[in-house]
């Protein structure tokens, strides 16, 4: 059997009718490889124009790729859905055991559509789906408990993935996430709310199969070569301190967003740094198929107030983005405090970046008198993590109108209460933690998912800063961003982890694919990347997205970056150029 045939089964689940079926979609997998390439096409087929992101007409697409689980670091599942935060097609990636489980259930993609009238969870085993009642799981206070219950109730330990939402998803917090294997997430753009709107509490996939590799000798050779690179300098940073290694260098550079981007330097950076967290590091974990083990858990040991000889030890995953969003950007420098805030978003199941940015806006709005304590219930002050902890729960519980609005994202909150000039978002999506310079902010405005991962343009800014080089003209910047974003479409179609982007250069990719029977040259891959780039952007345009309408938060222009002040004119010219180019290409 050809590899394309092997990986091209798509499982469709209709939650309204409680039916499922499998179709072989070789047409898609042969043209678009897999991952994002295929997921965008399935999205186009399934989600009608004008669909309500939280209505049954929205669909959830999960896709893996040709390298999934058979090559090192090919460990991402790509989800595509219409975002309740941005109102356009969205994308979020996650690892854990999900890709391997989907792949060895014999599937290349899963499409979930419709909506159930009552809470359910799905168990996918091979090509069979069981619909299970989730009445008991719905409303549970911690998403971790949900995971534990399912872990004990279901078979397939070691060969399964358990994706679930927390209360945030149930209550349609627009930036709710989907948690996988406790420490990985479809974090961004609100997939958790889409699950919640469909009354889908969890999705369990068990993968017990295998695949015959067409050229086993070539395969073993390519595998060994790639594994060696994956274990070397290319991933050293992630392997050692993990992404938390970014805190100190970004702070030194003046690019660590602090107190709602009021500054690029945080005096408390030291105590939320990867180096400091090493003192609490308790365990290292990896996604299936990845030698890097970038996942770092910290243990917090806490005494019970009422029983002073009783302690509890909890493990909290930390990553750079969380340390920025719930640390520096809220002025929180208490190490344990930050970890506890991370714990709260883990239990509730919401995106730390969006939640942190929303709270940073609320803190400033309160300071400036746009809102009062009546709104926030607790006094929000920079650094007061206990108050933030309560506030995070309120976002989920929504005890008043203010929190109902805050649960819709910072864009909605600012349009209702004011303070748009310091509401950090691009097209509704709150930014990740890099105030590195103009290319980064431009990339957030024009990126397919308005995410730092679209093109990793913070890296371009950092490069310019360290080389003391001239910032390119906006038109040139757009070209650089588009070219990187295009190549990343290839990586996201193979579904390799972006931390492996230096492992999977064009040479390694073609070699890996060849051992699986693909005849794709480097040029063809590049062309494919460009086509997928265009497809993604064209879908968004057809959904009514207008790049020119993206608002630039004033705050971004007021706080200097390592490359000086970002100007409105620069970003506008870039956005204009992007809009013209993409419309021309799309025609």
């Amino acid at each position, binding site marked *: 059997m050809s590899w394309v045939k092997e990986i091209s089964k798509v499982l469709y689940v209709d939650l309204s009718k409680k039916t499922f079926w499998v179709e072989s979609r070789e047409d898609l997998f042969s043209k678009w490889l897999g991952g994002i390439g295929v997921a965008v096409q399935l999205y186009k087929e399934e989600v009608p124009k004008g669909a309500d992101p939280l209505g049954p007409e929205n669909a959830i697409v999960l896709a893996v790729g040709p390298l999934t689980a058979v090559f090192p670091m090919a460990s991402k599942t790509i989800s595509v859905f219409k975002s309740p935060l941005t109102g356009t097609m969205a994308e979020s990636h996650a690892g854990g055991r999900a890709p391997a489980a989907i792949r060895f259930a014999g599937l290349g993609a899963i499409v979930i559509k419709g909506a159930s009238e009552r809470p359910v969870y799905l168990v996918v085993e091979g090509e069979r789906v069981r619909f299970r009642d989730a009445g008991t799981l719905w409303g549970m206070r911690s998403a971790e408990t949900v995971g534990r219950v399912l*872990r004990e109730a279901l078979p397939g330990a070691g060969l399964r993935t358990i994706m679930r939402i927390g209360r945030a998803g149930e209550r349609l917090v627009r930036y709710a996430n989907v948690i996988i*294997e406790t*420490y990985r997430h479809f974090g961004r753009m609100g997939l958790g709310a889409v699950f919640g709107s469909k009354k889908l509490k969890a999705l369990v996939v068990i993968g*017990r199969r295998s695949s015959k590799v067409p050229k086993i000798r070539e395969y073993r050779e390519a595998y060994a070569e790639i594994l060696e690179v994956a274990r070397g300098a290319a991933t050293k940073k992630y392997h050692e301190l993990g992404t938390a290694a970014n805190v100190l260098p970004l702070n030194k550079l003046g690019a660590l967003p602090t107190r709602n981007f009021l500054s690029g330097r945080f005096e408390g950076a030291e105590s939320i740094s990867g180096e400091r967290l090493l003192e609490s590091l308790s365990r290292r974990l990896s996604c*299936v*198929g990845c030698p890097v083990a970038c996942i770092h858990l910290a243990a917090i040991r806490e005494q019970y107030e009422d029983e002073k000889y009783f302690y509890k030890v909890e493990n909290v995953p930390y990553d750079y983005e969380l340390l920025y969003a719930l640390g520096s950007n809220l002025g929180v420098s208490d190490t344990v405090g930050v970890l506890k805030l991370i714990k709260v978003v883990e239990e509730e199941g919401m995106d730390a970046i969006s939640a942190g940015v929303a709270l940073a806006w609320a803190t400033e709005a309160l300071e400036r008198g746009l809102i009062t304590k009546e709104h926030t219930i607790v006094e929000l002050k920079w650094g007061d993590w206990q108050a933030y902890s309560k506030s995070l729960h309120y976002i989920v519980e929504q005890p008043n109108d203010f929190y109902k609005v805050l649960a819709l994202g910072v864009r909605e909150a600012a349009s209702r209460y004011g303070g748009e000039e310091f509401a950090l978002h691009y097209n509704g999506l709150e930014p990740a933690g890099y105030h590195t310079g103009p290319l980064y902010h431009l990339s957030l405005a024009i990126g397919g998912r308005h995410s730092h991962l679209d093109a990793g343009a913070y890296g371009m800014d950092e490069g310019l800063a360290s080389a003391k080089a001239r910032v390119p003209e906006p038109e040139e910047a757009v070209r650089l961003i588009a070219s990187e974003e295009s190549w990343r479409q290839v990586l996201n179609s193979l579904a390799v982890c972006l931390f492996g982007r230096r492992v999977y250069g064009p040479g390694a990719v073609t070699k890996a694919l060849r051992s699986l029977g693909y005849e794709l040259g480097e040029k063809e891959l590049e062309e494919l990347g460009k086509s997928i780039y265009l497809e993604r952007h064209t879908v968004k345009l057809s959904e009514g997205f207008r790049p020119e309408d993206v608002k630039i938060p004033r705050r971004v222009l007021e706080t200097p970056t390592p490359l000086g002040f970002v100007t409105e004119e620069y970003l506008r010219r870039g956005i204009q150029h992007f809009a013209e180019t993409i419309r021309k290409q799309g025609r």
Partner: protein
Amino acid sequence: MIAAKAQRLVVLDANKCVGCQLCMLACSSRLTHVGPAKSHLLIRSAGGIERGFVVVVCRACQDPPCARVCPTGALSPLPKGGVRLSSSKCIGCKNCVDACDIGAVLWDEELEKPLICIQCGYCVDFCPYGVLGVEAL
């Protein structure tokens, strides 16, 4: 790839296991069908991954219970420990799976036969963290 020496697989330190399952993939790739699901060892969480992992490998028992319960003699004990599977004799009753207290007799869902570790040690070199090793019998 039959192990030449009498040796067995050992778990040196399960605490260092990160759950990457590279060992499982390596095991399966000795043959023609690749996938952690076709592996002769299993890495699973110890009740939630924050508690770490259980590394399930065949111990190469001296008096292997799996062989004792096999109704067809498909599993034969080796002189220094461990068993060999003679696939053509196996009727797929799963007695051996139930008999192994550590759960090291895994199941091939595609062939409906047990996955019996041959103690070759191929997986050892693929573990990035030195969790696995071999020792002579």
